[in-house]
């Protein structure tokens, strides 16, 4: 029949071609929509980060500030004692006990700063971070299952796995609202305080100063 012939003339192999064409268009559609999701995702990440950065900063600022109050004050007290010794007896060097303790306190404080940086900086990239990068690279995975109600499929358990890996990090960074700090630094501060009290006594300095040093014990220390 002539219409079949003319149809054939327009496209090579009409029936097969149509079926393939539809399939191709469908695939293209799917791929385009997936790309939309990813584009939206990337934009969403940027927007979310920008929106929360300042809030995070303000929160962290207060937390970090709390961690150096006691040790900072102790350093100031010892600094004053150092100067006092130097001024009172310019002919003699400042006692090594004073210089040494000041150095130890300074180092202790540096350690605290270092711990702060490390605590929030170096969780290794979580599995979910990595899988996100893989998504961005369009490495083919199972269709991410947007489980609204935590289903039971294999992709859901993979998601749970991601969340489990995330959680220890979350705990580390948001542990009871404060930055986690090793308890050993808390103990050594008490030791430094005690040494300072002993030193100040030895030097025959006023009792009031010793009282001030002892007050530092009760300044809110992170755990």
């Amino acid at each position: 029949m002539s219409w079949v012939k003319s149809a054939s003339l327009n496209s090579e192999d009409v029936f097969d071609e149509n079926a393939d064409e539809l399939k191709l268009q469908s695939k293209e559609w799917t791929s385009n929509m997936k790309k939309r999701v990813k584009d939206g995702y990337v934009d969403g990440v940027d927007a979310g980060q920008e929106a929360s950065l300042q809030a995070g900063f303000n929160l962290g600022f207060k937390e970090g500030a709390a961690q150096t109050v006691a040790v900072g004050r102790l350093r100031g007290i010892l600094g004053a004692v150092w100067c006092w010794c130097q001024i009172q007896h310019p002919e003699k060097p400042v006692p090594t006990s004073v210089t040494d303790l000041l150095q130890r306190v300074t180092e202790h404080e540096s350690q605290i700063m270092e711990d702060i940086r490390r605590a929030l900086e170096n969780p290794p990239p979580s599995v979910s971070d990595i899988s996100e990068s893989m998504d961005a690279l369009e490495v083919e995975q199972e269709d991410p299952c947007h489980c609204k109600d935590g289903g039971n499929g294999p992709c859901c358990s993979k998601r749970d796995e991601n969340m489990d890996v995330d959680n220890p990090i979350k705990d580390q960074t948001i542990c009871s609202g404060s930055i986690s700090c090793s308890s050993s630094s808390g103990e050594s501060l008490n030791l430094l305080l005690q040494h300072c009290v002993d030193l100040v006594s030895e030097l025959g300095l006023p009792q009031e100063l010793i009282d001030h040093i002892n007050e530092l014990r009760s300044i809110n220390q992170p755990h």
Partner: protein
Amino acid sequence: MEMPGVYTSDDLFDSILLADEKFRGEGFHEGFERGTRRGLQDGRRHGASHGAKLSSEISFYHGFAIAWKCLLQESTDDKSRKRVKALDTLLGLIQNSNLEDPQSVKLQDETEKLRAKFRQVCSMLNIPTDFRDYIKVTEGTSF
């Protein structure tokens, strides 16, 4: 995923756009949640470092001033009284400084005033050069 039905070309176009926006929107929402978590964490890290540093500096001045007040308490001469007065002013500035709002412009002004006062106090106390060097290194302020 349904192919849009056969409508007029305008309707077709609309429904494609709608689908487009819908998927983009879903992606955006999920990304936003993740970005928020990350931003919070990054911000918190930077904030903590800054807060710790500033608090360390101000607390240092605090301990320094309190100790010197104790050390001078016995002295009643003019010079010492002037020094104690300066120390009290410094302590007053410290107590009024508020580290609650790192964004406040007031905080920057207050910190600068504090530092200036501290330098003045050190001059009055004849703080040795060695120690001024120490302060320069640890507090990052110079004389």
